[in-house]
């Protein structure tokens, strides 16, 4: 594998055990809770796939992106539904979009976020295909002329209307474990349960690897993904990309869609030089636990718990001009844009290079 950008797929062999940052020990606690695999989990696995040699790392890993492999070998990527899409209160089959609207309501946000997003409905949840998310980013999915769309039109996958029939791409599987003594009886107090995640058939975690031009390493599996030594197969995949950005940003209005959990310096707020935050739809904070078993002191000495803006969150920004918006989002002649890259942290920050805060840009009105 040479330098450039490559997509890798991590396909769990059976189940995953990915936990949040709370401490859990068999015999002391009775249960733990699973979380979606975070960028650091996937980044660590990819690092191992490339040999796990310190100093020989990809420049950046961007992901994870949930995807499903089809029988013909092609992939469909899935992204969390944007937080400003809601299902109508009266008819859950209809999807609407919250709109930034002037209001006399007073909030404790001060002038940081001028307009509330207004509309009635329940959070959509579920996952959009990459193609559908592209239409959303271009402003073609829910428009002022067509304010309601049906769930069928949107090809929304894994919506949890009924957990029995559509429990999501990573289904929770409760497992009970016990410890036995040498005389084959259960050790007292050593009964525990853990919730594993079982991917639906064909579901994998994808990530884009930005590799140095001199890169010669191949990604080799299997690698441990998450806890309990659960293994995932590794493969390079073609035909996968981030949804394409719009061709222009009328009025300097830029929508930022958070594709992977983001840990911004400003907490829940995104700060963009030259732009004003107009409105935001941000999901509940997501605990992100990181640790480095290879560093001095191991996991216990290096683990940290942070709170991230969840994937699917949406920010509406206002630039001074369409050109300024365009330059920031997709770049200009002298500089690369932010679309499809991790944002908000220094270039060599480990949280950035592991894939936290990948954003996609779109338009809003």
């Amino acid at each position, binding site marked *: 594998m040479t330098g450039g950008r490559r997509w890798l797929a991590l396909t769990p062999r059976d189940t995953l055990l990915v936990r949040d940052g709370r401490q859990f020990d068999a015999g002391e606690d009775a249960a733990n809770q699973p979380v979606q695999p975070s960028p650091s989990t996937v980044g660590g696995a990819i690092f191992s796939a490339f040999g796990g040699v310190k100093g020989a790392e990809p420049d950046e890993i961007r992901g994870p992106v949930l995807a499903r492999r089809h029988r013909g070998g092609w992939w469909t990527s899935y992204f969390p539904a944007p937080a400003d899409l809601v299902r109508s209160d009266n008819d859950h089959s209809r999807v609407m979009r919250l709109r930034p609207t002037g209001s006399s309501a007073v909030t404790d946000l001060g002038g940081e976020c001028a307009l509330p997003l207004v509309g009635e409905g329940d959070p959509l949840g579920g996952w959009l295909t990459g193609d559908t998310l592209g239409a959303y980013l271009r402003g073609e999915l829910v428009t002022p002329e067509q304010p309601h769309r049906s769930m069928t039109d949107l090809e929304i996958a894994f919506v949890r209307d009924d957990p029995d029939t559509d429990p999501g791409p990573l*289904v929770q599987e409760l*497992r*009970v474990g016990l410890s036995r003594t040498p005389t084959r009886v259960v050790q007292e107090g050593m009964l525990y*349960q853990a919730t594993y995640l079982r991917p639906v*058939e064909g579901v994998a975690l994808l990530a884009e690897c930005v590799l140095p031009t001199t890169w010669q390493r191949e990604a080799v599996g299997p690698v441990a993904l998450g806890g309990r*030594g659960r293994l995932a*197969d590794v493969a390079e995949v073609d035909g996968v990309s981030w949804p394409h950005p719009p061709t222009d940003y009328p009025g300097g209005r830029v929508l930022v869609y958070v594709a992977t959990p983001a840990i911004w310096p400003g907490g829940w707020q995104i700060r963009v030089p030259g732009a004003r935050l107009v409105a935001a739809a941000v999901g509940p904070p997501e605990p992100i636990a990181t640790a480095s078993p290879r560093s001095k002191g191991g996991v216990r000495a290096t683990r940290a718990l942070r709170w991230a803006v969840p994937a699917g969150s949406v920010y509406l920004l206002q630039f001074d001009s369409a050109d300024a918006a365009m330059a920031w989002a997709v770049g200009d002649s002298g500089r690369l844009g932010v679309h499809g890259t991790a944002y908000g942290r220094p270039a060599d920050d480990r949280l950035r290079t592991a894939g936290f805060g990948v954003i996609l840009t779109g338009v809003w009105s």
Partner: protein
Amino acid sequence: MTELLLYLYAESPVHAGAADSLGVLDLPVQREATTRYPVIWGQSLKGALRQVAQDAGLEDLVVPVFGGSSEDGETELSAGRLTVGDAQLVAMPVPTLQRTFAWATSELALFRLVRKYARLGVTGLPQPPRLAPEAGAAASEAWIGSGRATRSEVLGPCLVELGIAPDPQLRRWAAQLATDVLGDAGSQASAPLAPLGGKLRDDLLAVGSDVMPMLLAECTEFVARVQLKEGKTVEHGPFHSEYLPTESILAASLTLRPMPAEGSLKTEDVIEFLLDLLHNKLIQVGGDETIGKGLVWARLLRADDVRAVAPEIADESTGVGQ
């Protein structure tokens, strides 16, 4: 990394117990959350394999391969070099109105098996047969062609059409499984399960995605049990346990990380130890050990032990086309 394929063939009903009760079923078996296919969790299987090594007195092998345990309070906790995947269902016996029973498998189960073989580096295996959700296919003439254009068979609670001719891909899979699970190839004639090879070659059926979940739900064994007082009256119960039936076939991927170069135990030595422990050996997995449950014949295959069974060998063995 060294990849190994472990087949398990149930000699007695297997109860790898799940986390919760299910309706009137107090003690269900472990099942996958997505497909509801029965499974033996990797953690359960690894514990059973560890017990086999301990029972064999291979203490030097236990900690480096299976990991250090805190149960004796002396051994330092450490990760073992062996990763044990879930034992996934390959085929399960279902009652029929002729030939006593047949093994039911599915496109999904065989696709998973293809991937396990691919990890070993084995190629040239047939694609699993593609079936309509309500349809079925048979590996041999025994289930086909009684003079009627199509023929339906009673499989457990289902009536399934098996087509008008044996499925050639399934026939190859039957031969592959007979060779690898039962060891009935010429050089493996002494394998304990080899006499069953002829039946597996003939009586492997594949069913569609609507039929398989029903068979896997309805064709496991349900046993009511009670606990008696000294006076032979019931103290507790009845309670109901579920078992994977005898003759079920499961497969798991085992992955062995290289042993440390500085250690006395070499990777090749560990593989030989594992083969001694697990190849053509009867081991015990799951619960109810003391009432004879959970006995399974294990076969541990390395890449060099496996080859795709050629179609002509499959045909010769079943007599098809002769």
